[in-house]
């Protein structure tokens, strides 16, 4: 052990900053988690605030809106897994099959550009696009002889709008991971398949997909680990009180009732609750994945 340390010390040195980062930004803040169990006052500080037991958890779980925000969060996450998760994979496969290098590069660049646009701007574009009187979507509907729809004020459209927007914004960027995995597949496998007379489709199904399956599984597991974490930024930019029914998720609820009201203890309690649930989900799904696909995070 000791000799290995000495022998490979440059590698361990490379690891050091990362460990320091973890210690400073992941483990040290955990100390602050205790405010989830306290009646936190910013002026008394973390240590001196009185203990409050599980009252914040009880307040959140017993809240009028708990079931609604939980349901909305889960539905948005699950629909994203179904409709949004496969898009970058398909995109990567298509790009991989494209013969013209210039075309492939161009499409790839254009597809991942939206990732770099601020979410505020993207939401602004979506709002303008869907505006009921002069939004392009409604002008099209009108030209087609259909009635105008006030998309952003109709709770039934919210999830579709939100998930489509995210897919458009992130698919190109997420595809990079899969494209990288695709280049790692041994070309000899393809050659062997061609010699065996496999069609293009067969090659995709039997060589390409199994080749990137580990990557897919890891991305999927990571996604499952974030099941309860639908970011609030895009939500609060797009929702209206009238669409709370489908749009209000845990994070936006915490933002409104916790952060804007300065109730950090309650916000922390919800965050902790989220993390515990996500950890459990991750452990379970990792075990399942190992059992059925031999792939796992650990």
């Amino acid at each position, binding site marked *: 052990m000791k000799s290995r340390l000495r022998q490979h010390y440059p590698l361990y040195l490379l690891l050091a900053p990362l460990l320091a980062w973890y210690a400073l930004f992941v483990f040290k803040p955990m100390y602050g988690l205790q405010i989830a169990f306290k009646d936190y*006052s*910013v*002026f*008394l*500080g973390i240590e001196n605030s009185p203990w409050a037991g599980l009252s914040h958890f009880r*307040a959140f779980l017993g*809240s*009028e*809106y708990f079931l609604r925000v939980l349901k909305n969060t889960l539905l948005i996450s699950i629909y994203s897994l179904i409709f949004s998760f496969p898009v970058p994979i398909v995109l990567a496969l298509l790009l991989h099959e494209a013969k013209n290098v210039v075309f492939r590069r161009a499409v790839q660049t254009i597809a991942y550009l939206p990732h770099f646009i601020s979410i505020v701007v993207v939401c602004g574009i979506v*709002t303008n696009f869907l*505006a*009921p*009187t002069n939004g392009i979507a409604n002008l099209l509907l009108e030209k087609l002889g259909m009635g105008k729809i*006030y998309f*952003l*004020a109709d*709770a039934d459209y919210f999830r579709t709008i939100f998930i489509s927007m995210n897919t458009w914004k992130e698919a190109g960027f997420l595809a990079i991971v899969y494209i990288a995995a695709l280049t790692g597949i041994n070309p000899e496998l393809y050659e062997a398949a061609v010699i065996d007379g496999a069609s293009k489709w067969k090659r995709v199904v039997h060589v390409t997909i199994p080749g990137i399956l580990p990557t897919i599984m890891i991305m999927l597991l990571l996604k499952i680990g974030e099941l309860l974490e639908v970011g609030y930024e895009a939500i609060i930019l797009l929702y*209206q*009180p*009238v669409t*709370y*029914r489908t749009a209000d998720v845990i994070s936006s609820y915490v933002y*409104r*009732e916790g*952060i*804007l*009201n*300065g*109730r*950090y203890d309650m916000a922390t309690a919800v965050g902790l609750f989220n993390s515990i649930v996500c950890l459990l989900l991750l452990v379970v799904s990792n075990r399942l994945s190992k059992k059925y696909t031999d792939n796992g995070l650990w």
Partner: protein
Amino acid sequence: MKFRNKALAIVALAALSTSLLSACSRNGNENTGEASESKTPATASASPSSTNEASGQPQASSLASADPVTLNFFYHDTKFDITGDSPILKKAAEATNVTLNNVAPAGGETAQAWNLMLASGEIADILAYSTAELNAIASQGALTPLDDLIDQYAPNIKQFLTDHPDIRKSITAADGKIYVIPFVSDGKAQEGWFIRKDWLDKLNLPVPTTVDEYYTTLKAFKEQDPNGNGKADEIPFFARNNVTGPYMLLPLWDAFRGANGVDFRIKDGKVSFGPAEEAYKTAMTAIASWYKEGLIDMEIFTRGNKARDELFANNTGGSLHDWFASTSNFNTTAADWVAGFDLQPIAPPASVSGQAIETTARSPLTTGRGWSISAKTKDPVVAMKYFDYWWTEEGRRLLNFGIEGETYTMVDGKPQFTETVLKEPAVVDYLIAQTGAQIYIGGWQDYAYEQQWTNKIALAGAKLYTDNNYIAADMLLPAISFTAEEENRLKEIKPAIDTYVTETSQKWYMGGADPASGFDAYLAQLKSLGIEEVTAIYQAAYDRYLQL
């Protein structure tokens, strides 16, 4: 170079005068406060120009500190970047030796910036924010009580509070102390109803005076094509504020919702929750049918701040309820876009019970803003003296008119805005952006600043509202403050109620549900969310206010 010489001269002068002052008062430290107290108002009122910085003779009495100090300052503005380098703060620094360093981030949401600062534990020395929130953190021991400091070091503020006991009452916290020096507005009328007079003339309609006539008018706007483009694209009623604007119609049915997130009002001497009154049901039913008929902008909840510019530019907006001054200005700006554009203020249409009332008022504390001194600050006396500077004649002029020679000049002893300022379409925005004047710090607004650029139409509108006593000031809840316990309860219960009320109301408004049939269930839900306790807390705070 020139600046440095000037600065040097000031520092030298300051050092000299303070050493003189301290020499005089050495025999009795307690006298200093009283001496300057009796002195400042006298000099301020007798010879305002002598305190003027332009003469190069800063008075010792305006110095808050002998040595230049920098105090951290929290001031968040969603639109403008206010820093210690904002000209009026710089000017004040020259006069007082106190430089402010704004620690708030530029842009973003105000509440978030505020809470982040609190959570960081690094509380700025001077905090400019909403009075209610400041009093809330004061109850946790975060702020310095100002009563004694005002008595000793702030003669101008003291004088003002003695002259205005109502304001003193409103800024007094639940524990009986004062923690906040407020931004005091001047003038009475704030918002009113506006209608396109040229459209009325074109359709041969009289000015609507009742809710029924108003309905007929909006209906005519919708159906009779007053803009003459052959399409029914008119938007009879619209609003700029997408949170409170849509509810400006409520008084037409005697219903009420507050303009700043507090939906309580005074009814028969008691605190009453507007959205739980019977009138709210009637009002929402009527509004929903107006919305359905297209009399209200379909996008009223999403159109936002540019609504007036958009809808007047394309000649589709008909009527609205908005601020007098800025709305009247469209008579000038929109004249370029639309021939014959004529937007006139009208008296509030009488409600179903025959009352013509206006529920927005420019009460002295209408902005609900002010500033405080942190409990952690090193030298609260310096901060207090600095606060007082803004209440001297010089300081008040600085806050209202900006920089002499740049934004205003003195004409017959009175400040007069320059042509450049008066030509601006949005004078307040211009003043804030260019000089920092009119920011919400503890100070006293002077309506004269507004009168100069407010056009005649707006002045006539404001006069119409004040002369006829349309403004129902006695209905509005004064600024009240809560104890720490009450504050905690409110934080626990009120957010869910607010969410429920805004969500349900918007649903009713846009036709997603029927207010008439759903109202009882709505009341029951409000009750189970704890509206009775919230009302009781507001009542208790109001009772305390009455007893002060």
